[in-house]
């Protein structure tokens, strides 16, 4: 999923200070799962913002709505009946959702309430960790199902570097050395010999380096 974290309240308050009526929009997909911008977080933020305004002797009118999927224009349409009743929109979705709302309502200021972080998985309740960088040319088949692009701090395709220590990365003892994980997995698969094949320099065009990307499925489009 795409993970996100709520922005500091001060930053959000700074955005909406000039307004008195806002639409706070959550998303029922990834940000709900990572507890950053689902219905519940919308409620909490709404309450917190209203109190912050009350403290200053001001009133903030908040309309709350959590869309099924904010990155889909079809669902963003649901905001139409509300949009004229507000001065600005605050989105709790990932950057994709924020942009969809901004695109649909050109005359309304739209602000993000979360920082979109990474594509990750849930390690345990309340803990999410990065797993994929969307490089556009998956190497997991060569690396035992562990991604060196996303999980090695230097994204080495022929690791580990000299900083691997007791299975941990040199940048932080909390971070697993991706290449230790890869090596362990190659061994348990009995294919450790493949380690010595040099992975050639990556073609980063399929990644962000090639410019903004797009997928077109002719059969569906």
């Amino acid at each position, binding site marked *: 999923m795409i993970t996100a974290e709520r922005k500091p*309240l001060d930053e959000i308050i700074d955005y909406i200070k000039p307004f008195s009526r806002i639409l706070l929009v959550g998303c029922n997909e990834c940000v709900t799962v990572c507890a950053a911008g689902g219905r519940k977080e919308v409620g909490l933020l709404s309450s*917190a913002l209203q109190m912050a305004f*009350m*403290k200053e002797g001001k009133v903030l009118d908040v309309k709350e709505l959590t869309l099924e999927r904010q990155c889909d224009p079809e669902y963003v349409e649901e905001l139409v009946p509300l949009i004229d009743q507000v001065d600005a929109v605050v989105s709790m979705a990932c950057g994709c959702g924020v942009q969809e709302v901004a695109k649909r309502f050109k005359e309304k200021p739209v602000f993000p309430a979360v920082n979109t972080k990474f594509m990750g998985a849930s390690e345990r309740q309340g803990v999410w960790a990065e797993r994929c960088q969307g490089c556009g040319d998956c190497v997991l088949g060569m690396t035992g199902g562990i991604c060196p692009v996303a999980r090695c701090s230097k994204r080495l395709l022929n690791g580990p570097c000299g900083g691997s220590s007791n299975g941990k990365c040199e940048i932080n003892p909390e971070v697993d050395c991706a290449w230790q994980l890869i090596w362990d997995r190659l061994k348990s698969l009995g294919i450790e010999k493949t380690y010595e094949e040099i992975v050639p320099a990556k073609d980063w065009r399929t990644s962000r380096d090639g410019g903004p990307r797009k997928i077109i499925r002719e059969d569906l489009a």
Partner: protein
Amino acid sequence: MDTFEPVIVAFCCHYCAYTAADMAGTMRYSYPPNVYIIRVPCSGKVDALHIMKAFQKGADGVYVAGCLEGDCHFKTGNIKAAHMVAYLKGLLDEIGIGAERLEMFTMSAGMGERFARIATDFTERIRKLGPNPAKAGSDKTDKVAVG
């Protein structure tokens, strides 16, 4: 400030604190009438939003009272509640309401005296802190509106 009587909302677990409140009454321990008790089936059932709404609607202090560690009828409801309270304290600090207006306490059903003491101490704490700044702000708006 002399006339300030804090409004305290106490979310009390049915299995411990709520019974402890009864016990306090039976044992004739008095506690301030400022404390409004809301019975919940488990402290873990208290939603963050309930607490925020309590503050938003004018509570000056809120506490959650659950079972002693290890005694939760639903195993870890009290621990979940403690985590949630810790998170909300941060949020309350961020918006300038103040973390000290929210607390988590634990007790057993038999601790009538503890219930009364916590209710008294917490009420005094909030009395010293003064009114919920959000309420104070909205009072200001009312005055502006009237004036």
